[in-house]
């Protein structure tokens, strides 16, 4: 399937809503294995997305993803800014030249994360959510269970990338905050498609 502009707008709007409602949850996850500000940072990004759309309503998918990317890049501050920013910017560039199938679109975002973070699956990062979600979307099988399974699997991993990697074995048993915010992103996507 391909995302229509209205569905994609709904997707981002729901993501913004979840980030604003779950700031404390994300901060708490980040306090356990990071520096405690992922929720605050992402909320700032969410507000920036809302402000950017109010200024200029995106007219194409490429516009929508680009505006989202720059809001995150400019306002988030922490590592998730350039990471989400790169994922959405790469998706924006790809949409410009071609209308993409959802799974291929998400894979391009995932590849952007891998490049920017010099990371891959199994390192207890947001890639551990993005990659299985991309795979599932390619097979038209994206559902809540895919996200739940990805989070559960990531929880048991020992972090080998990012700040949590300093905790080594102690990072096991905690949910990576970037994985949780990515879960919100894809839960929003499922809701937008279903609506």
């Amino acid at each position, binding site marked *: 399937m391909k995302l229509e502009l209205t569905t994609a707008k709904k997707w981002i709007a729901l993501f913004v809503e979840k980030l604003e409602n779950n700031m404390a949850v994300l901060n708490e996850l980040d306090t356990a294995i990071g520096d405690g500000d992922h929720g605050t940072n992402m909320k700032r990004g969410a507000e920036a997305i809302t402000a950017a759309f109010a200024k200029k309503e995106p007219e194409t998918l490429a516009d929508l993803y680009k505006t989202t990317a720059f809001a995150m*890049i*400019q306002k988030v501050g*922490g*590592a998730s*800014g*350039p*990471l989400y*920013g790169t994922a959405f910017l790469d998706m924006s560039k790809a949409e410009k030249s071609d209308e993409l199938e959802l799974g291929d679109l998400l894979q391009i975002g995932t590849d952007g994360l891998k490049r*920017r*973070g010099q990371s891959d699956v199994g390192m207890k990062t947001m890639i551990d959510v993005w990659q299985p979600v991309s795979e599932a979307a390619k097979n038209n099988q994206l559902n809540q269970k895919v996200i739940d399974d990805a989070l559960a699997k990531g929880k048991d991993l020992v972090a080998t990338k990012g700040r949590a990697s300093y905790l080594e074995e102690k990072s096991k048993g905690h949910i990576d905050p970037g994985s949780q915010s990515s879960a919100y992103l894809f839960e929003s996507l499922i809701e937008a498609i279903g609506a």
Partner: protein
Amino acid sequence: MKYGIVIVSHSYDIAQGVKKLISQAAPDLSITTAGGTEDEEIGSSLEKIQQAVDDNHGEEILAFYDLGSSKMNLEMLMEMTDKKIHKYDVALVEGAYTAATLAQVDSPLDVIEKNLQPLKIK
């Protein structure tokens, strides 16, 4: 001059401090900084890095950074700009100092990079 130096840090004060330090060794070099977020909080800002690169008078940039998202934002800018930027994964203070000292006396890039090699930490 051929090379200018850009310092990217999570902290405004660290960026300013490194600039002050290396300026003593390289008074004629263009040294610009991107420290902290736009509100001078701890963090890194792509816009500030962009500004530091735009303001730099070097034909090419030697860039030094401290932590993860400084690096990610710097790499993001490198994908966006036409300016030639060389990024070094070395100890920030020692690396910037070494490069500044050598660039001040117009050392060629291969000499600068040879001297940075033992300072590689990331």
